[in-house]
């Protein structure tokens, strides 16, 4: 067990006691002797902190032996709640009786707290006490008693609460209604449905805050089972927004199929804003929803209702909904069209894919482009139809086809996109093709095979395309990509040298380290520094053991021919301060031009490590560096 704060003497005692809580609890329950010690603390003049923790300890393991002394604390404003932590938990009539007895003398908030604890214990023997407290002049006390009676929830409690529902003063009646609803819930759960319904109905008719009416109405609807439907429909048609909202929520909980019909019937009667919301409730009942009704709503009518229905079809629709969704997807209303396209992309089912693929070759106009987009979004295999679309005079169709190919081609089909990149019909098509090729390449399961295809294409590619292909190879990643880029960076082609060294410098893991070091040593002279900086970037950015980082940093430092790179290495060591990287920095002091920078860096590293509890004084002293 961890102690989380500085402690005073008394708190320390408490802490020690708590330490024993954890350890003893692991082995066995509290011994009688230990309990006596804790009770003695309660009786003593010990600080309140100690008594509080003793209460907590007794809450877990105390027995009825502790009840009397705990009860005495119920009058203490500081310790009452601590005592109740124990008294709520110690089983037996003694604890319950202690709480009841305390209500005879307590007043105000301490009384409220004690009544609350009686409620938590659901003490059926306390109904008389609680009923009496319902009449208390202190509204907080009476309210607490009402809620506690609700938690007890037996027939006697029901009787008391029902009487108070009309008799209680205004400032208590809301709590009485809360108690009634709690009580009704317990009655209903216990099979006393009639009694529960009667109680709910009483609250609905009482002069209580609307939220209480909402709770009672919900209960009254659900407790009635299918017979509660008229009451639900009544709320659905209510002009009161809160009651309408209640109906929307309760409809989702309602059993059976009749409610689906009722919701459907309400659609045609209500205003569009409400109909849109009703459709959402219908769709949240996927097992029994009347799909035809939602489909019809998606096809015609007020815009907000159509959009709601179109969105709902994503959850409940099937292949029978396709034509309606197609029509909506090419509608002139952008919001409706967008909603339909989103649903079409999400709708599940192989039959849907088959229908889209079958329709594509014959499609025309707006539908043509929309279907091509769907092929891409749903990743439907339809390469021949997409290839045909590439010949379209409509640039929107061509673009959609390229995107779709990027989402659907396999390794064999990669060449299609490569050729589109090589021989694009326009600059715009070329850019789209490049993006599509990238999309296709990065999702190929066999990275190396993909890189082989791309590398082969590079041989015939014009200079600008070579750069694109190299960038895509870098995006694909993997061992083959690294090897290809390493070779390319050392080729005789200046364009490839530039592009390859650039993308290697941004590699996203340390696998590129050997390639970059090789280039830094033996690559084209004008890109050696770039390669070295890329290597230093790997040392900076990626997780690795301290020793490995220090070794890589030392390698970079030794290869550096300029102070700028050497200082970058020092910065990396400072960022990843540990005894290993400190060695690199200390060694760097041997370079006269860097001695001051390295010393400053070493001191900063030593301080940073010291703050984390890493002692490098010896290391620094041996190096002759003083840390103030």
């Amino acid at each position, binding site marked *: 067990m961890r102690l989380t704060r500085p402690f005073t003497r008394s708190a320390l005692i408490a802490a020690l006691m708590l330490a024993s809580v954890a350890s003893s609890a692991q082995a066995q329950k509290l011994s009688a002797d230990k309990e006596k010690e804790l009770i003695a603390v309660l009786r003593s003049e010990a600080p309140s902190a100690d008594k*509080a923790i003793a209460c907590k300890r007794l809450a877990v393991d105390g027995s009825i032996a502790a009840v009397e002394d705990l009860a005495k604390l119920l009058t203490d404003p500081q310790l009452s709640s601590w005592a109740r932590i124990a008294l709520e938990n110690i089983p037996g009539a003694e604890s319950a009786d202690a709480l009841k007895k305390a209500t005879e003398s307590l007043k105000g908030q301490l009384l409220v707290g004690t009544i609350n604890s009686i409620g938590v214990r659901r003490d059926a023997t306390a109904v008389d006490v609680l009923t009496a407290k319902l009449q208390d002049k202190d509204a907080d006390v009476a309210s607490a008693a009402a809620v506690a009676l609700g938690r007890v929830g037996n027939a006697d409690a029901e009787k008391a609460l029902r009487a108070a529902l009309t008799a209680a003063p205004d400032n208590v009646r809301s709590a009485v209604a809360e108690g009634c609803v709690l009580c009704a819930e317990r009655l209903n759960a216990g099979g006393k449905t009639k009694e529960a319904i009667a109680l709910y109905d009483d609250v609905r008719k009482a002069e209580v805050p609307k939220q209480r009416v909402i709770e009672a109405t919900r209960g009254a609807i659900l407790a009635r089972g299918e017979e509660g439907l008229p009451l639900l429909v009544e709320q659905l048609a209510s002009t009161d927004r809160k009651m309408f909202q209640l109906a929307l929520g309760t409809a989702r909980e309602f059993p059976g199929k009749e409610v689906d019909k009722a919701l459907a019937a309400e659609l045609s009667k209500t205003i569009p804003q409400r109909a849109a919301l009703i459709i959402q409730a219908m769709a949240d009942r996927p097992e029994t929803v009347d799909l035809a009704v939602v489909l019809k709503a998606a096809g015609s009518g007020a815009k907000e209702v159509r959009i709601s229905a179109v969105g709902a079809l994503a959850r409940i629709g099937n292949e029978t909904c396709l034509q309606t969704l197609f029509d909506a997807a090419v509608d002139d209303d952008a919001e409706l069209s967008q909603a339909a396209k989103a649903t079409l992309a999400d709708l599940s089912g192989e039959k849907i894919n088959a229908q889209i693929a079958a329709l594509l070759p014959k499609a025309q106009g707006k539908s043509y482009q929309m279907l091509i987009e769907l092929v891409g979004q749903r990743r439907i295999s339809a390469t021949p139809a997409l290839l045909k679309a590439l010949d379209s005079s409509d640039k929107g169709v061509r673009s959609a086809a390229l995107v779709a190919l990027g989402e659907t081609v396999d390794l064999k089909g990669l060449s299609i996109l490569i050729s589109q990149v090589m021989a694009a019909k326009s600059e715009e098509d070329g850019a789209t093709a490049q993006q599509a090729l990238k999309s296709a390449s990065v999702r190929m399961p066999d990275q190396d095979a993909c890189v082989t295809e791309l590398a082969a294409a590079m041989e015939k590619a014009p200079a600008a395309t070579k750069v694109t292909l190299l960038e895509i190879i870098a995006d694909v990643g993997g061992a083959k990509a690294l090897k290809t880029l390493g070779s390319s960076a050392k080729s005789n082609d200046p364009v490839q040298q530039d592009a390859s060294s650039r993308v290697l410098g941004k590699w996203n893991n340390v696998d590129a380290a050997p390639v970059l070091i090789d280039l830094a040593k033996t690559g084209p002279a004008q890109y050696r520094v770039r390669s070295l900086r890329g290597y230093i970037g790997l040392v900076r950015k990626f997780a690795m053991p301290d020793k490995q980082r220090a070794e890589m940093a030392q390698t970079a430092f030794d290869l550096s021919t300029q102070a700028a790179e050497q200082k970058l290495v020092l910065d990396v060591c400072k960022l990843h301060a540990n005894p290993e990287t400190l060695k690199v920095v200390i060694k760097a002091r041997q370079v006269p031009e860097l001695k001051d920078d390295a010393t400053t860096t070493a001191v900063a590293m030593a301080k940073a490590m010291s703050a984390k509890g890493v002692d490098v004084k010896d290391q620094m002293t041996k190096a002759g560096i003083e840390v103030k």
Partner: protein
Amino acid sequence: MSNQEAQVSRRRFLKTASSAAAAAFAAPTIIPSSALGLDDSVPPSERVVVGGIGIGNRGAYDLGCFLEQKDVQFAAVCDVKEARRTTVKRIADTKYGNVACATYRDFRELLDRQDIDAVLIATGPNWHATMAMNAAKAGKDIYCEKPVTKNIEQSLILADTMRRTARVFQAGTQRRNLPHFAFACELARTGKLGKLKKVYAHPAGMQAMMSGWLPAQPDPDPAVVDWNMYLGPAAWRPFNPKLLDGFNFEKGGGLVGGGVLEWGSHCVDLCQWAVNDCPPPVEYNAPKDGELVARYENGCELIFREKGWIPLGSCPVRFEGETGWVEAGDSGKMVLSSPTLLAGRTVAEIGGYPATFHVRDFLDCVKTRSQPKGNAQAACNAHIACHAANVALFLGRQVKFDNQTHMFVDDDQANRLRSEALREPWRL
């Protein structure tokens, strides 16, 4: 899993952070924006009027997520600290170009306002459940930061209260509305990984703690810091300014949850989603070698694990089935046992666990009355799993939990850790 396998899998997913995909996730087509009040066609009276309670560091972030929604009108702030009241009012008034944001010291006054539809609760965890239930009883919908509850009993009553009061409740478990976590959970939930065998959560510090009081200092002026209201339902203790840190305050009293609750309310929550939000595990073992193993009724294990994670950022989860696995973390990235699990889908990579989508989900549900992703029942189950694990941790032994009775089985000690009395006058 080999590193290569991980890298291959990772690459397959992590090239996907298209803004279009992110946007699609952010704004699902549920009902028209006009009906939701997302454009200017709906009058201000149709907007969701929100009040904020306890808006500190985390709350200020949440507040920003609310304020960026066009259909939100932030109308009031309540805080026991004067400085925070003033700061939040300035933020809201600046946003709206007026001085209308009301300030309160007592949240009950804010809840009394009939024009406020929903509240953002971002106090310290001590207050979360009690305040949320007060808000529900006042007819407010609730977005409540996590951890939502302090013990098992609170978790049960929370779910029950939200159901009974017909309120929309969203726990601040925003990872449920991030695409990569959602996808990972979907894989597990829909059987794509085969029969689920193990779900892993990262508790980041498995300790069940108790501590005593800090030294008493003179009570501050209530107008500046209302200590009595700050304490709220927590058992009494003297004022000490060091306790004015909502989370650490939790450590000043009874059994508190450490990393199991602080992080578990996120990562165990995701595990719960992966197991289709079924009831929490029925068996919890004492931790061993950095792992606390719990077991669901169907035999699937929930494992609180400190080490062994693929470096995918904080709050990682891992789901293992008979035929595949997935691991995801706060970087927005995930790793799959096989790229075929992607089934051609593109999953947006959104790192940094933003809450914007979660807030949007909440607001949509306030209007449609549907259940948000982090609804009270889901939060209840996840929190019970965390609390029960903490009980096993605290007792240092196995405990068994019955999801019918919501009690530990034949275990008086454990059952006495199910709940804790609230300080007067507060009740659930």
